[in-house]
């Protein structure tokens, strides 16, 4: 009797398990089928350079009296299309880095509220798909070939890899290259390498730190990993620069170095570089602002040079340069552009596009909108951006 009961329980359990496993296999299979049914992507690649955090026209493309981005203005501008009069006509009360970056990525002006509940927090989550999700849902582009290169001071921008949209989301997320991610990788490696030597307490502490770092984005649940190619990337970085963090380039120069290496190793189809150093002018030193712009200008020069020296990228890469926001112009202040408090000047930006399919040597004076960048990138890369509100920048196309 007991044997019969045990046997019927086992049979029931087996059948239930089989049904569940079959369902999983079916879903996975359909996903794989959907993945392989998407076409491969042949280009053009797009490098989106966030000329920020917060840069005015007058120190860059509209020198009054000098430009701190001579390469962009004097050497690059005549090879592409310069939109001198781009605006951020957002209904949101604030012009900021997070807001501007999301405006660029999703092609829509939204009012973003911090979800972390921290004072002055900027943990924003996009409600509609980002460019990364569009490109990955339209083409067979692996995660490690859609990248955000992020600065170490703004970990909140690590969340811009995917949106909360129910049809897109984490499945089509991009990967991130940043010092924060390297530290996460490093800690994981150190735990693996030294766990035998460490005391139990130290090991537990390190594991807690790692869990905390990996849980940066709660939306991803247990899946906190990035692509295996990213781990290889970090392994090479570690070999070259060690563990201390004191050998590698710093600030926005670090972002340029990460970008150059990513182009060589990861071969991204869509890459966004989130420059930010010029935002240090918030603390009152005007030289930080102007030097920050110069550093970005030098970074753009290196990136363009890297693209042009790579056969796969040369003639097959569009570069878009656009600030996240402008800066103020307070006539009564010792540092007129110290902040970007939603003034007219902080909403006045520009955009520059260069590459195949883009017109050359053109300057567009009529006003355009920051949210048009997403639709423009979509049109260049050949995918639709149905949730973006801005129209493509028609003047950009040859």
């Amino acid at each position, binding site marked *: 009797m007991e044997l019969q009961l045990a046997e019927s329980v086992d049979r029931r359990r087996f059948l239930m398990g089989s049904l569940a496993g079959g369902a999983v296999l079916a879903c996975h299979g359909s996903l794989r089928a959907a993945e392989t049914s998407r076409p491969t992507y042949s280009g053009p690649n797009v490098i989106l350079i966030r000329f920020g955090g917060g840069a005015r026209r007058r120190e860059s493309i509209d020198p009054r009296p000098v430009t701190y981005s001579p390469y962009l203005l004097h050497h690059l501008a005549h090879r592409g299309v310069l939109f001198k009069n781009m605006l951020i006509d957002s209904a949101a009360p604030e012009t900021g880095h997070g807001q501007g970056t999301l405006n660029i990525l999703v092609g829509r002006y939204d009012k973003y509220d911090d979800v972390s509940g921290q004072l002055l927090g900027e943990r924003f989550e996009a409600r509609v798909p980002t460019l990364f999700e569009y490109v990955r849902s339209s083409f067979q582009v692996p995660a490690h070939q859609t990248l955000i290169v992020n600065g*170490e001071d703004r970990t909140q921008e690590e969340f811009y890899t995917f949106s909360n949209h129910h049809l897109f989301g984490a499945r089509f997320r991009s990967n991130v290259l940043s010092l924060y991610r390297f530290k996460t990788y490093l800690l994981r490696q150190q735990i693996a390498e030294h766990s035998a030597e460490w005391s139990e307490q130290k090991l537990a502490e390190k594991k807690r730190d790692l869990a905390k770092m990996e849980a940066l984005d709660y939306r991803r649940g247990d899946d906190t990993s990035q692509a295996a190619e990213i781990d290889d990337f970090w392994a090479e970085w570690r070999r070259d620069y060690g563990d201390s*963090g*004191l050998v590698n380039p*710093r*600030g926005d120069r*670090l972002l340029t170095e990460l970008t150059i290496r990513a182009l060589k190793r990861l071969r991204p189809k869509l890459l966004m570089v989130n420059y930010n*150093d010029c935002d*240090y002018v*918030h*603390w*009152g*030193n005007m030289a*930080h602002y102007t*030097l*920050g712009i110069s550093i970005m200008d030098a970074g753009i020069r290196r990136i363009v040079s890297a693209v042009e020296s790579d056969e796969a990228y040369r003639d097959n890469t569009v570069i878009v340069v656009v600030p996240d926001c402008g800066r*103020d*112009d*307070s*006539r*009564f*202040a*010792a*540092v*007129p552009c*110290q*902040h970007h*408090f939603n*003034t*007219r*000047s902080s909403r006045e930006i520009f955009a520059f596009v260069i590459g195949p399919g883009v017109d050359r040597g053109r300057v567009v004076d009529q006003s355009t909108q920051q949210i048009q960048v997403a639709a423009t990138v979509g049109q260049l890369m050949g995918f639709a951006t149905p949730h973006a509100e801005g129209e493509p920048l028609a003047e950009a196309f040859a």
Partner: protein
Amino acid sequence: MTTILDQRHDIAGESAAVDPPRPRRRRAWVGWLLWPIKFALGVVLCQHPLGALFVVGWSQNMMQRAAVKSWWRRSESRQTGATADDFRIAVLNVPTKGRRRWRWVAPIWHTWRRGLATALNVLVVTLPATALWVFAWSLGWNNSFFKHYEQSHLGFVIGVSGILIFSAVMLYLPIARARQATTGDWRTFYDFRFNWRLVRLGSWEMLGVAILFALASMPVMILRIAPYFLGSDPALAGLSDEELRERLGEYFLFSTVIVIPLYFLVWRIAATAYARAVVRGARRYGPSTALVDIERRAIASVLAVQDAPNRGSTFGGILRGGIRLPVTTLLLGTAYLTWSAVAVQIFVGQFFNYVPVVPWMNHPLVLLPWLRYFPAGL
């Protein structure tokens, strides 16, 4: 019974008796007439640091009157019918010859010199802290921009050190400045031992002064920050530099109208706190040998109200002393933290509207009541 008013003073070889008091109605009428004129003049003078020294000098005169009046309220002279003016004349040993002419209009040079001496003393004790802030701000943010992790602690350590020093200095400064104002002797500012005893004796008052400063500093901080936002008005775009200077100048005149009353308020309270501390110390321990003549004369009249200092029994004294120490420490500790909050306000003001070195090192309520700063190019 003789009082201070009966004492004869040898002034320049002449004996002088105290004049009988004047009718109060006439004095009040003159005072009310002069007040708005002096106020307007003070607002204008505070548009330049050298002019602001006059106002500092006036505040010193005001502090002296406030302290002496505080003593008068507790004095035997008051009980015998002497007015505050009479008491002040006697305590300060004001020469009777030509006294009427100078009673309410101090010599211009004398006032300016008082202001200069005060400002220099305040600068001497506050400069170490404010200089550290200037370095901390510059060094710290340079380190952040260039990601100098190896030196990342420097800006923070220097800045916090400056705040700690500033807070300690500000515990001492109100008493020291009030004493200088009352005695008319700049050297009393540096009588560290005695002044610190007064700080401890007036620990309640010191906390009150700190809280008042912190509260009064908030509108001052807003006035410091506001030009940044006012200057972002698109309507200013078409104005010439001269027109912008004019607009900003009007703003600074308006700001000074707010700052001057706050300045006089906080320092008047400080003067009263000093006066009460002197009385408390004299009643508790008897007149100190560190008192100068003015203080001694005033305290003599105060102590004459009671026959002996309020010492009580030995056991009671020990008990009170045992309670007093932790209470004093707690009060002064709280005052110290309150001064740190004032320092934080200064940093916040710098974040919102950065100004270069000199205006940053001058807090309008601490040093000079002067806010006027035009950015380079205007």
